[in-house]
């Protein structure tokens, strides 16, 4: 029971971190039809900026400034990069963001070196918030939950309840019409791209010290974020939310399950397996393959429901 409750909390925290990263990606995709490969690189930049700023001014200014810096970089990428390659079609845009991954990765290595940074949780948040069945729940985890939940709420309010959100949504489906009505559609695109980068930067700020800030962090987070976005349905914020929480829970709970497929078959009277590949697959404990489950689920959903959980168009 205690493992269940604690895993539930852990899964929620991890899922919300995933959501912060994935929401920016899915927002950009739904607006601009660009799958931004460099999204996890922006996340990494957010963490490094936060480390640098917090070394001079402390964590709280970093929490505000680092995402804004990431947003500025995002805007620059959109205005001087993506917009220019846009007429050459989607492949060109994809390759462009793919190239950015390498440039940002190398840039980070050249600026900060290859070793992990000593970016730590601020002392004011570095205490156990409460103790549950003898296990501490760190205050910083609660803080992460708070930040991601408030971000989710404000994004939703912005998109659904404000005039800006109205224009963004209209530009999503009818860009020509919105343009004819006198709105600056390229400006809207830049805003959305920058906004997505702000979210990624924010995720970097709070994820960088929760995990480690190092040049490999983009590569570590990149794949799983894509899985979340594809699974939830490209371009659907709600689907992205559900998928993030689901992936967080699955990965957390999988670790706790020491049973294998074989244990499921046991009530049917099957207790031994042949000593071959099939037997190997059946008897491997779920905990050992937990981290691969999201990828298996992505393959499954692409086969069964290509548009994802709540997507509106096929992948």
């Amino acid at each position, binding site marked *: 029971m*205690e*493992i269940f409750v*604690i*895993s539930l909390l*852990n*899964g929620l*925290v*991890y899922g919300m971190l995933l959501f912060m990263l994935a929401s920016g990606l899915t927002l950009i995709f739904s607006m601009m039809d660009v799958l931004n490969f460099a999204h996890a690189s922006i996340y990494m930049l957010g963490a490094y900026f936060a480390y640098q700023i917090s070394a001079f001014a402390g964590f709280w200014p970093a929490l505000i400034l680092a995402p804004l810096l990431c947003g500025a970089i995002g805007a620059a990428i959109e205005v001087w990069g993506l917009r220019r390659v846009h007429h050459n079609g989607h492949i060109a845009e994809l390759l462009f963001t793919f190239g950015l991954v390498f440039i940002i990765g190398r840039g980070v*290595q050249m600026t900060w070196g*290859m*070793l*992990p*940074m*000593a970016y*730590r949780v601020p002392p004011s948040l570095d205490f*156990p918030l409460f*103790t549950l069945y*003898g*296990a*501490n729940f*760190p205050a*910083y*985890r609660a803080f992460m939950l708070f930040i991601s939940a408030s971000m989710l709420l404000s994004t939703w309010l912005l998109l659904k309840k404000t005039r800006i959100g109205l224009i963004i949504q209209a530009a999503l489906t009818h860009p020509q019409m919105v343009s004819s009505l006198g709105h600056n559609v390229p400006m809207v695109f830049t805003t959305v791209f920058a906004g997505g980068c702000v979210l990624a930067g924010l995720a970097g700020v709070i994820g960088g010290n929760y*995990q*480690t*800030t*190092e*040049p*490999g962090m983009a*590569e*570590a*987070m990149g794949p*799983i974020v894509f899985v979340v976005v594809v699974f939830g349905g490209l371009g659907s914020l709600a689907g992205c939310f559900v998928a993030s929480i689901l992936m*967080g829970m699955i*990965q*957390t*709970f999988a*670790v*706790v399950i020491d049973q294998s497929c074989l244990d499921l078959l046991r009530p049917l009277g099957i207790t031994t397996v042949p000593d071959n590949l099939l037997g190997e697959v059946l008897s491997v404990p779920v*905990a*050992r*393959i*937990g*981290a*691969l489950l999201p990828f298996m689920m992505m393959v499954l959903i692409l086969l069964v429901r290509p548009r994802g959980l709540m997507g509106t168009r096929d992948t």
Partner: protein
Amino acid sequence: MTKKLKGLLAACALAIAAICAQPALAGDTIKFAYVDPLSGPFASSGDEYLKVYQTLFARMNAEGGIMGKQIELVPFDDKLQPAEALIALKSITDQNIPFVMHCVGSNVGAAMIDGVSKHNARNPDNRILYLNCGALATELTNEQCDFWHFRFTGSVDMRTASLVRSLPKDLKTVYLLNQDYLFGQSVRTGMKKWLAQLRPDIQIVADELMPFGKVQDFAPYVEKIKASGAQSVMTGNYNRDLNLLVKAAVDAGLTARFDTILAHQVGAARSIGAAGEGRLTSIIEFSANVPPDMFKGPEADAAEKFATDWSKAHESEFSEINYWTMMKMVKAAVEKNNSTDALKVALALEDMQMKDMVGQENIMRKTDHQLLMPYYAAVFTKNAKHDTENTGLGWKTISESTAQDLALPTVCQMKRPKS
């Protein structure tokens, strides 16, 4: 504008001249190729070892080089890919470089052993020696041992043996957590073997494999460890898989020890920080604290000074004492024959004895070409004399396993060349 252009042209010309001039200068040197990941996610290790070699090469050159000739380091990037390493090997043999050094990744090491062996069989007049400084899998000097391969670092077997030897007497329950690939499985086998042989009183409460480099959140693992009630987590994890584990453990208030074999690798101290205080141990070749903790005399003082000078210049810990032993052994072998011929050098290296930086005797065992060298158990604490990576905490030496202690049995059946 034209002035600028002229300046640019002049600069280019100078740069080209500088590049062209280099081989001419390097005409009469003894070359050592160095193959390791210098880009990609594992570049931090390759980059660190490259710096170590640059320093050690400069030191040896200052002491007169080998046979009176200067030695030269020629780095190649293998991106931790066996295929890339073999391409580099081709280029190395084309340039007639007599030695190839490689330190990261047992999978690459296995490919190198095979590649070097085949090359030497096909080109008896242009042979090359593989000096292994860090591919750890025990198999490389057991089932896969080869005459042209010399391992100048402790195998997983040796490291896990010294880890088990260093465990405190009152430790009764351990949790094994390792990465699910060749290296992690090798560590797991070693740990279980040595626990059964040396510490039958210790109970293994869990024996778990986790995906290599895929886990982003270690909190669920920490929960499991906590539920198991183990006093110590024994792990071969390194890099991110170790750093995140220890951080998550501290966050959740887990009080278990972490007994590891690779926590002293570059970058770990800085990313774990105070979370590891007094509870994180590692099996090390050397650190700035080994001489003051374990030895006395001018040799120890000189080694300590070398290590502290290194940390001042590089913000990392110098632990690669075996690289220097290796270079001294190769120097002795080359000078004995007055030749860099691979066969002659290999024969001279066999059963060679050499004192390391702190004066301990190392032996290159003839049967499997494994260097028998001492290992030290160290704990990460603020009570250490020298700190590491500017963290305020350092590796304090707690015990030693001597070269004799680690002369473990081997199953190697080496094919020896006839000429």
